């Protein structure tokens, strides 16, 4: 115990001295490196790793190299909270993570209490609605994408009665509530509302229900495996209605799992490696070469999040967490002078971000961009 005490004291002493010397700046990433969210969290982390390596190779941030430290939340919200506490105890400039909304909602309280700026990859609308002045997104909340997909369903397809199938979790409910609000506001009717369980395997009943509901389009908001299982069952029962989603439904993982059943599904994505933007294409290529697998939206989120830290710090000229948070509110970074953020991006007072996004359709087992939509 005494040993721990002296180590802590010396660490604190060193850290204060470090501010003066050309030591490293410590940045913590709390991510889902194991557990159900490992697919998302590990990829997010790899995106950050790649970004900071590039940053360090070109001189670091304000002349200091970045020391990236990873903490595994194990996709458990309580554990993620503990890890954020640990990261803050062990000292970090800013906090990156988590990806899963159910974890972020919990752990951002700790960051907030400690005045720690946090860049998250979560998309649940509630995260920027809680009045936390230290939270910032790297991907806009689900509520931003819904108006775009809603307009397409209404104006593009002329759909009137929508069936919504969604995962009954923090993530799924957030998307569901956002979509329903938009759709009903646009005058469309939610003719079937089908909640499903996380890790649900049997979708026969849900598809049967949708089939007999008289819907003319479907909106699906579940996680990867469930989306794939749903698509497979829908194809099996001969459902030929347009199926729309946001981010997950049309991701490459779901396309691969659904084995052809995803053909024709479409939706809105904020970030995709298929985007017709040279900076993103370049990043995806480097990612594939470095890690041996393809970058997905989580990798891109992490990557540009890391670069955001660099640019904002350089803007304020010092490693001041309080100033960091202040500066980010109302900040816009354009991709031309800040290549690391890949696309023009702006943050508002709640930490919500706006950016252009894409409408994609699944053709030949790949995502095809059909439209680029402006930021809202």
């Amino acid at each position, binding site marked *: 115990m005494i040993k721990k005490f002296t180590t802590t004291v010396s660490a604190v002493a060193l850290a204060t001295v470090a501010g003066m010397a050309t030591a490293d700046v410590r940045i913590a990433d709390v991510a889902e490196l194991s557990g159900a969210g490992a697919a998302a969290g590990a990829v997010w982390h790899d995106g950050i790793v790649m970004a900071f390596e590039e940053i360090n190779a070109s001189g670091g941030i304000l002349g200091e190299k970045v020391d990236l430290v990873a903490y595994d939340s194990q996709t458990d919200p309580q554990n993620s909270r503990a890890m954020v506490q640990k990261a803050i105890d062990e000292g970090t400039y800013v906090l990156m993570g988590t990806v899963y909304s159910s974890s972020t909602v919990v752990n951002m309280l700790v960051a907030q209490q400690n005045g720690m700026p946090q860049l998250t990859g979560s998309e649940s609308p509630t995260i920027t609605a809680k009045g936390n002045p230290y939270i910032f997104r790297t991907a806009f909340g689900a509520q931003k994408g819904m108006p775009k997909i809603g307009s397409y369903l209404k104006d593009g397809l002329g759909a009137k009665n929508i069936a919504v199938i969604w995962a009954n979790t923090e993530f799924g409910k957030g998307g569901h509530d956002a979509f329903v609000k938009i759709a009903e506001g646009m005058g469309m009717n939610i003719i079937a509302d089908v909640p499903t369980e996380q890790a649900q395997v049997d979708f026969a009943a849900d598809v049967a229900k949708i089939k007999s509901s008289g819907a003319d389009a479907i909106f699906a908001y579940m996680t990867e495996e469930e989306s794939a*299982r749903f698509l497979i069952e829908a194809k099996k029962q001969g459902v030929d209605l347009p199926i729309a989603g946001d981010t997950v439904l049309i991701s490459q993982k779901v396309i691969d799992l659904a084995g052809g059943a995803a053909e024709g599904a479409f939706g809105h994505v904020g970030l995709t490696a298929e985007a017709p933007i040279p900076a993103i294409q370049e990043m995806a290529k480097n990612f594939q070469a470095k890690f041996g697998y393809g970058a997905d939206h989580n990798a891109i989120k992490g990557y540009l999040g890391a670069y955001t830290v660099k640019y904002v710090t350089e803007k304020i000229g010092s490693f001041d967490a309080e100033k960091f948070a202040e500066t980010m509110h109302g900040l816009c970074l354009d991709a031309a002078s800040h290549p690391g953020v890949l696309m023009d991006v702006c943050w508002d007072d709640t930490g919500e971000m706006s950016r252009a996004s894409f409408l994609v359709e699944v053709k030949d087992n790949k995502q095809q961009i059909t439209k680029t939509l402006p930021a809202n």
Partner: protein
Amino acid sequence: MTELLQILISGLSAGAIYALAAVGFTLLWQASQTINFAQGEFVMIPAFIALALITKLGFPVWLAFIAAILLSIVFLGAVFKRLVVEPMISHGTLPLVIATIALGLLLKEAVKEFYSPLGQPFPGLFSHDTISVFGAAVSFADIANFVVAMGVIAGLQWFLNKTRTGRCMQATAQNPDVAQILGVDIKRMVLYTFLINGALAAIASILITPVYLAKFSNGEVLGLVAFIAAIVGGFNQIKGALVGGLLIGVIDNLSAVYISAEYRQAVPMILLILIIMVRPQGIMGESEGRAV
């Protein structure tokens, strides 16, 4: 009407698989008082064994399936009995329950770490093409699942009732001491039970994974359903587990559509509680007299 028919058919198809898992669970309980909390993981693992053989060693699909069944019989059957169950059988049921909980966790984590945390597509034995039955879509896989599951269980029934070994196994389950006196090698009979469970789990795995997609968390859902099906159906009868499995499959689907999708999981649970309170031997079970 089409909707109802679709739900019933899909329910029976899923239920047939639950029945396989439930039958194995029942056998273990009967023969050796083993409440196997890892039964769900036992149905998850063979698919990954097959998948590993196909992707890492380039086995053709049919060979990988046969190998998976054989390996399951050896590891989930014999090795499980020898290493986990046998040393603990004298300590009572609770340590064994805890050990099987831990075993389920171990298997789950091992697959997650050493194979992949992501879901994987799995080759189906039967075609997914569908035929229309009064408007409901029935795939050949659905029909095949049902037929194979029923066939296996019928075969098992025949084996237990009509062959000498089968009757020895029944005797061991009913009264091991007397069976031993009468010359039955009870250790071997118990071993056979475990081997059969391994085979049943592997068959269920191969049938269900094309639909479920291979994922380390598949066992959670399947395990729970196996217990409920076994108890509701009547766990001292093989046909009880069969009835229980089919019933749960159908009820689950019916409640999702006609009662409440949000409380879908609640219905089998409530059924479980009711059956335990009102008729603990299950729907098909025979009442066991209480031994003082």
